């Protein structure tokens, strides 16, 4: 079935065109068909314009490191530079402050890995408990989980900083890993999964057979939960890797930064945006673009491969009608 939405851009004649279905109406008069081509074309042009808005910055970012700073300013903005410049940008970025980039990458990897593991370790049992066991205050707990899930995480960043400061954990990896472990969206996803896919009778049967509560969870629920573990791990990874505010607040020393905060450091300390003051700086705009590419690469790769999982997850955030 192909339908065509008439748009204002196509003029008011198109707006009055009856919606035509490809099959089922038999032969169509010719003028109608050509009008359909026009609306389709207009549709395509409008969509292409919006796609350009979304994609051109990405393309620009991909080719920016292939140019010198001078070329960025004086040559066409979407032309390819040279492979040589690309290597040069990489070298300059890589050697910046004794391979600090590597350090940031390691930090990012460490914080995200710790965060993901902790988030999974908490979210899966919590979701399981909420979905399949009965205990006092279950409904309250579920409501609180939902509340904090919807509430933006950054609202908690400063309170968390105050808390970590009190516990003298600021400036340690724990100060970001522990809060990353707090992932109510993951709990909710697990809850939805367990309550919709695993019948309580199955667990009851196992208990009758003499399995302990732990056995039931470990040997029955957990193996069945593999898909939701992957989904939660994926979301936790993306949100931890891209998180900026929390590590920005927690760390005073740039050697501890993860990459997103490292980017800010590059901008402000290396004067990438200030070619006059930063003339001697190894980090100019092509290097900065390269750093941004490095920062997004892992998430980007995950995005390309897990597109479908992402879409399901976004819709699972709330139940369907």
């Amino acid at each position, binding site marked *: *079935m192909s339908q*065509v*939405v008439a748009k204002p851009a196509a003029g008011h004649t198109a*707006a*009055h065109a*009856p*919606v035509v279905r490809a099959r089922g109406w038999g032969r169509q008069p010719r003028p109608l068909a050509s009008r359909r081509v026009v609306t389709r074309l207009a549709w*395509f042009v409008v*969509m292409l314009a*919006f*796609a350009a808005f*979304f*994609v051109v*910055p*990405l393309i*620009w*970012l991909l080719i*920016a490191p292939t140019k010198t700073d001078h070329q960025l300013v004086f040559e066409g*903005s979407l032309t390819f530079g040279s492979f040589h410049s690309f290597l040069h940008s990489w070298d300059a970025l890589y050697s910046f402050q004794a391979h600090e980039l590597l350090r940031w990458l390691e930090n990012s990897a460490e914080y995200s890995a710790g965060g993901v593991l902790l988030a999974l370790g*908490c979210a899966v049992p*919590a979701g399981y*408990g909420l979905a399949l066991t009965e205990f006092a205050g279950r409904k309250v707990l579920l*409501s*609180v989980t939902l*509340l*904090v899930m*919807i*509430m*933006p995480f*950054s609202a*908690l*960043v*400063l*309170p968390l900083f*105050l*808390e970590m400061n009190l516990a003298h954990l600021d400036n340690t990896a724990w100060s970001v890993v522990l*809060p990353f472990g*707090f*992932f109510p969206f993951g*709990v909710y996803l697990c809850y*939805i999964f367990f309550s919709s896919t695993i019948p309580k009778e199955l667990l009851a049967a196992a208990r009758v057979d003499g399995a302990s509560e732990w056995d039931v969870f470990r040997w029955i629920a957990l193996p069945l939960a593999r898909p939701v573990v992957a989904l939660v791990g994926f979301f936790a990874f993306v949100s931890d890797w891209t998180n*900026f*505010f929390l590590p920005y*607040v927690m760390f005073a020393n740039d050697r501890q930064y993860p990459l*997103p905060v490292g*980017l800010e450091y590059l*901008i*402000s300390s290396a004067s*990438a*945006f200030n070619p006059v003051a930063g003339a001697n700086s190894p980090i100019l*705009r092509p290097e900065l673009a390269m750093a*941004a590419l490095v920062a*997004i690469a892992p*998430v*980007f790769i995950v*995005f390309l491969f897990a597109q479908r999982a992402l879409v399901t997850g*976004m*819709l699972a955030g709330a*139940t369907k*009608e």
Partner: protein
Amino acid sequence: MMLLAFGVVPTAYALYLSFTEAGKPWHWVGLGNFLKTGRDFRFLPAFEHIAIYLVFWLVMLVVVVLFLALMLHGGVRRLVPAFRFLFYLPGALAGSASVVVWAFMLDPQLSPWHFALSSIFHFSVFAQVIAPGHLPVVFAVIAFWTGAGGWIVVMNGALNNISDEIIDSAKIDGANAMQLAFRVKLPLIKKWVVYMLILAFAAGTQLIVEPILIGSASLGMVSPFWSPNQLAYYLAAYDDNFNYAAAISVDLLFVGLVAAALLVFRGKLFELE
């Protein structure tokens, strides 16, 4: 269950700090910190900025996301997944990378859109683009670029959930494409639009990455207390006034909580059973 420790404890501690005075544990000052921060010369501008930003961001989000989602739903079937994916792609750049990209995009010297920037808006240098009056729009565009795609996917999913019978019967009744979009499809996904608005509103009040990075990129042309979150951070990190910082973060937390509570208890979108 121990998860709540990182949601409830910091909230409680921030509440405690916001109601007490520095250096004097358990010395309650009531609403004193809130009143003092409220009178701070930086307080009102920050909330004013965020309010203007929210207007642009939410209007842009609703109008363009719905427009694109409806276009996709009524469009050429074979091309829909490709376009949806392209719209969604910038989502991978959430956080600081997207702001870096936009610092480039908004620099008339570098931007692939320098033509638009210079001949339509008459900007020739970056500083003009990010003049104080433009900042809310600039930040809204950046947030839109990374965030809109996800919402287009959600709206598209919601539209796909509308049963074919409803749409077919509307067509038989003679509805044209415009009527179909505005009178039939839109009311059916109203719930999701409200959902999007509330979430986007709550997230928007927390704006922080964009002003920090654009501020660094422009060598301080954006005030370090442009948004309320920045102000709270500044108070904690530079003024060492944790109590004031706590008061502002409680203000913000409150807004986020109210929005969340509205959705959870009134929205009927989530299953609690």
